[in-house]
């Protein structure tokens, strides 16, 4: 079966929320390609296409979320979090900044896991908790999701602290306020902004000079 056909088949199963069919295609791919190559190439490609379709208004957020979630379940079966093949360079952490709406964070988490990243999930973060954690120096890239404009604006204080203390961590932001105001991420001092979850792996690579 060609890769194109395989991708189309997998995409259709994900969009139909057909878990059994998605699992069948996924496991067949893992058997033939190996877990990490299949996740990086096929799963990554399909989720990127789904993310792009959302950006182009051909799909809805719920479809992107359900697709990512199904893939995440499957990728954890094929490559558990503790597996040595998981990528830990750069060291990536993910958090929800002063908010309670986890959807965006969960979607990014799923995308990164599906591409083999080992992700530190910092959960809900207050400004002080975020500052304390980045000071520990355990991450290279911090991805922050925010739904509320007030929360997004307060990320500026975190970025200001990172710059003032010269901490070696880059901040990548995403969420609704950044889509409605394209200059907002620069205004708050972030290093990059992702308008869809599927952009996260590429942006991490761009920020870290191509790693992994």
């Amino acid at each position, binding site marked *: 079966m060609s890769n194109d056909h395989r991708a189309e088949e997998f995409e259709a199963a994900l969009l139909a929320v057909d878990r059994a069919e998605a699992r069948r295609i996924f496991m067949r791919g893992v058997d033939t390609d190996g877990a990490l190559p299949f996740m990086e190439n096929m799963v990554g490609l399909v989720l990127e296409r789904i993310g792009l379709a959302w950006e182009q208004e051909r799909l809805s957020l719920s479809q992107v979320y359900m697709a990512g979630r199904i893939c995440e379940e499957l990728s954890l079966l094929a490559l558990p979090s503790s597996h040595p093949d998981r990528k830990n360079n750069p060291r990536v952490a993910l958090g929800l900044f002063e908010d309670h*709406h986890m959807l965006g964070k969960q979607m990014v988490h799923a995308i990164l896991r599906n591409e083999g990243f080992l992700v530190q999930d910092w959960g809900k973060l207050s400004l002080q908790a975020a500052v304390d954690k980045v000071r520990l120096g355990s991450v290279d890239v911090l991805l922050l999701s925010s739904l509320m404009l007030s929360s997004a*604006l307060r990320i500026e204080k975190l970025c200001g602290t990172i710059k003032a203390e010269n901490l070696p961590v880059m901040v990548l932001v995403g969420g609704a306020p950044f889509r409605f*105001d394209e200059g907002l991420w620069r205004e708050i001092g972030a290093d990059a902004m992702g308008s869809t979850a599927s952009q996260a792996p590429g942006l991490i690579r761009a920020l870290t000079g191509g790693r992994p």
Partner: protein
Amino acid sequence: MNSMQRVLTTLSFKEPDRVPLFLLLTTHGARELGMSIKDYFADPEAVAEGQWRMRQRYGHDCLYAFTYAALETEAWGGKVDFREDGPPNASSLLVAHLQEIDHLKAPSIKGSPCLIRSLKAIRLMKSRAKVEVPIIGVVMSPFSVPVMQLGFAAYLDLIHDDKKRFWKLMEYNQDFCVRWANAQLEAGAAAICYFDPVSSTDMIPLELYRETGFVVAKKTIAGIKGPTATHLASGKTLRLVELLAETKTDIVGISTFDDLTALRSASYGKLSLLGNLNSISMRHWTKATAEKEVKNALRLGAPGGGFILSDNHGEIHYSVPESVLESIAEAARTWGRYPLDWLK
């Protein structure tokens, strides 16, 4: 014309004296009165006074009874985080495990101090506005409020994986929503804004909306004893126009990302439009930008009536300076006078 006449005229797809302007302001009232946001919302007299003063200042055409989105989950027993730089937010989810839905109990209006405060604010507004200025009440739609009750991800899981429990939750929420809307109408609200962002095609596919949010909206709106405006809170509306009209809503709140020309062509005569100034980017607007944005919205949306100029989200953020609001109001007064001869 007074504000009520202006609004009713445009809703009948005729041109009033000028395009009605709804500045949907909430937390700005606290700043207007020099109060903290928390103290402001705790005091119905302050809320009514804040709304009155802001209308005097900007000359717009409504009083907005909305306080904060988490008010309803507060009534259900949830907690609210107040902050000094923006609207309050729900501080925790009402339902931690989906099984808890089976034991939910919708609150009584009279037994909820936060709702009683809101009703008192509406009554106070009504005592001054009489029939001249529409007071807009607000409900979260039964279909969208679960985002605050359960969290967005868990709610999407529920919709897809547990239909039986989903419909059970809708029953509780519909019961509460209809009672809450009607209590606001009885207190003096002229119309109810039905916030329903999850129904936007940005959020769920049209087919899923048809099976879920549409069914819920149709039944709920039928129970509300007054006019409604369905607001998708920045979500796009174009593909939903026919179905929204079938729910018998009167107005739809539209996104800044909507194609206003196409939307108007699809909705004129069926639904009036409310929008669609970008409430996030307006923080930075100069006087010239405000004028340009207002003129653009008027040019595309206002000819022939059926249009209320407003923001695209249903709430203007606290970070938007008063000078921007003044510029918007001034541009609406200057360029919104019918007939719109400057378009020729």
